[in-house]
């Protein structure tokens, strides 16, 4: 894709205001893609027991470009999952992440694949962020063997071991102690990596969160607890569920930071800051102020506990993809047409993946009994009397 930029690229390092596009010189993306840009986050960080990171975020043209493309992919994927669910190709629970893409993308931009991420059931986009493919997502959602967990997990059980993505958990809050265990293992093996444990505003009232936080702080584990606060725990608004909805402060002795979760650059800055801090000082809480457009899951219309005006208001003013689009246009990194082309390409990729996943077969019945135990037992064994394998007695 060609980039168009004003020749005076020396402005790049300043806090940029929109430059005129009178003269545009087309350049290839590779030539100036890594020229650093500094952009200010739209809202300041609010901190608790720590110093907030600066609002000026270092980024680059290619990074913004990749943000746009990745977020558009995630958005398109979630919308497609919505249609597939209504067509009854996806069954059961399907929790969609559209509106919250900035959290997944911003986090990925700040960390490496050696750092661990664990989240709850709204995990489709986090899986993509960690390197999962669209085919694996749609395959798993439709229960096919090409899915990430071979069709045996479903929407709430995406995992990717090779890039340290630990799922994918259905029980609210149960992933938080697991996340502390990941951090414990990182400390035990003396790796310089951190664990991001994501949970929602609903899970923030779980006791195991505070138990795990106590242990993480006690032993200085490199655990960063990220509350993706979309303001509704299924149908209950946060002010109706939490006495103190300032989730970043609920760690008490653990420092916290409140971040605008719809601003991908703010998320990136916060995660970078959190990683540096966690490696030195132990756990940290990040509260991402975000929003989900869909209901809690596909069985929830999402409009009985909030007004349509609220949803469309957020979509107009705070949508993460629109924000990046405006940045790209304002800094002349791309033109309207190029961005529309990307969206068309993304749509095509998603449709291709869906078509391919639809052709994939369902798991064989014998798969019912595989992976219950690790193969150390020598046979597939699954039950008190192991009915599948019979003994021929002498």
């Amino acid at each position, binding site marked *: 894709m060609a980039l168009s930029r004003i020749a005076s690229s020396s402005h790049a390092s300043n806090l940029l205001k929109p430059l005129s596009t009178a003269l545009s010189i087309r350049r290839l993306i590779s030539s100036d893609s890594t020229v650093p840009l500094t952009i200010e986050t739209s809202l300041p960080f609010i901190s608790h027991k720590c110093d907030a990171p600066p609002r000026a975020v270092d980024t680059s043209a290619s990074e913004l470009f990749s943000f746009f493309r990745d977020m558009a992919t995630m958005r398109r994927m979630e919308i497609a999952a919505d249609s597939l669910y209504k067509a009854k190709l996806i069954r059961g629970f399907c929790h969609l992440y559209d509106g919250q893409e900035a959290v997944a993308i911003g986090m990925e931009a700040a960390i490496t694949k050696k750092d661990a991420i664990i989240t709850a059931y709204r995990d489709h986009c986090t899986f993509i962020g960690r390197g999962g493919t669209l085919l694996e997502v749609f395959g798993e959602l439709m229960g096919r063997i090409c899915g990430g967990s071979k069709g045996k997990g479903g929407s709430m059980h995406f995992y990717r071991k090779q890039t340290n993505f630990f799922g994918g958990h259905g029980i609210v809050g149960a992933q938080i102690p697991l996340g*502390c265990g990941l951090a414990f*293992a*990182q400390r035990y093996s003396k790796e310089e990596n951190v664990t991001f444990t994501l949970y929602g505003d609903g899970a923030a009232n779980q006791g195991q969160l505070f138990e795990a936080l106590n242990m993480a702080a006690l032993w200085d584990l490199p655990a960063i607890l990220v509350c993706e606060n979309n303001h509704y725990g299924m149908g209950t608004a946060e002010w109706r569920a939490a006495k103190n909805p300032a989730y970043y402060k609920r760690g008490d002795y653990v420092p916290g930071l409140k971040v605008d979760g719809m601003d991908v650059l703010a998320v990136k800055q916060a995660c970078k800051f959190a990683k540096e801090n966690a490696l030195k000082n132990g756990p940290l809480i990040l509260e991402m102020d975000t929003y989900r457009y869909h209901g809690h899951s596909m069985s929830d219309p999402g409009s009985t506990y909030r007004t349509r005006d609220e949803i469309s208001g957020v979509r107009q003013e705070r949508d993460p993809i629109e924000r990046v689009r405006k940045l790209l246009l304002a800094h002349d990194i791309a033109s309207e047409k190029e961005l529309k082309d990307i969206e068309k390409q993304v749509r095509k990729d998603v449709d291709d993946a869906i078509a391919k996943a639809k052709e994939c077969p369902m798991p064989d019945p014998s798969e019912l009994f595989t992976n219950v135990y690790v193969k150390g*037992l020598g046979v597939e064994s699954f039950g008190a*009397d192991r009915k599948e394998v*019979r*003994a*021929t007695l002498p």
Partner: protein
Amino acid sequence: MATLFQGLPSSTAFSSSNKFNHAPAPTSFSERKSSIVTVRSDARWSPVLNSATHKPQRLITNAVATKADSSLASTSSKPGHELLLFEALREGLEEEMERDPCVCVMGEDVGHYGGSYKVTKGLATKFGDLRVLDTPIAENSFTGMGIGAAMTGLRPIIEGMNMGFLLLAFNQISNNCGMLHYTSGGQFKIPVVIRGPGGVGRQLGAEHSQRLESYFQSIPGIQMVACSTPYNAKGLMKAAIRSENPVILFEHVLLYNLKDRIPDEEYVLSLEEAEMVRPGEHVTILTYSRMRYHVMQAAKTLVNKGYDPEVIDIRSLKPFDLHTIGKSVKKTHRVLIVEECMRTGGIGASLTAAITENFNDDLDAPIVCLSSQDVPTPYAGTLEEWTVVQPAQIVTAVEQLCQ
């Protein structure tokens, strides 16, 4: 707290045949030419055990054939060394921690205090605070933490101070421990060992006398074993740590001070095997954990009365060792199950169903299952005695069964 196990003979004075006559050792694996049902988790290590270390080691499943005229022989001439059951557990734990740096222990008071039943005594000074971790009183989250650590490759041993406390961690054990290997399509394995003392003690009260094997038995993906002697305690502990699957090791509060002789050489037992305690002809008595001793006491009476019971300590509560059990049923045609679990939905109930489904043709009489009463364990001593199965009841049951 550890109570002295009074009134019952030590494990070395059981019955006439004192040899630990196990099901065939792996070296005689070929004896089982029939299709393999009971596969040991360590089958692939025979003949070379433990290739990681370079010492030549043999897998010994037969305990030293000791006993007989113990009054004559002096202790120093007998091979092996004598210790208490909790020391055997500690020995197994220590050997595994030395062998593999990924093995760590976590639980309440396991580190500096040494463990409420002294199983981890001295390990914290030897291995450090990170490997023998004192956790706060937060079972749900430290169990979850252990499971999360296992997902990355560590091998934690999670100790519940009393098995009953692990009810607080049921979600983590059921959903994350048992099911993660399956729901991730085989990506993650969870090689944890969850252990702790359970069972009815000496007037500990209802909440501290729970038998959790019945609650955990239907969780898919886990294995459950119950140890009953110092020999099998150490062997099962080592096997559980080496297993790639999550294993729940049930110990019993009243068995910690059992003294016995175990081999000096290293040995690992199979997690899925049952133990033949006393071969016989008339009736198969299946039992595990503390009830083994009640059964052996009853067996003495029964032998005097002319019966020949075959006593099998099933050891593996999930999955059952149907090979050993089936062989026995084919021989005796009568089954008595003696367990400490509750009547409703206990291990005995599942075992009855499994035997009936698989070996119905070989049974001459309906299976009799003696379990604890379906009541909260009372505090009063006499009442508590009546909640669990006593040797007299076992004798009566065998007599009725063999009519």
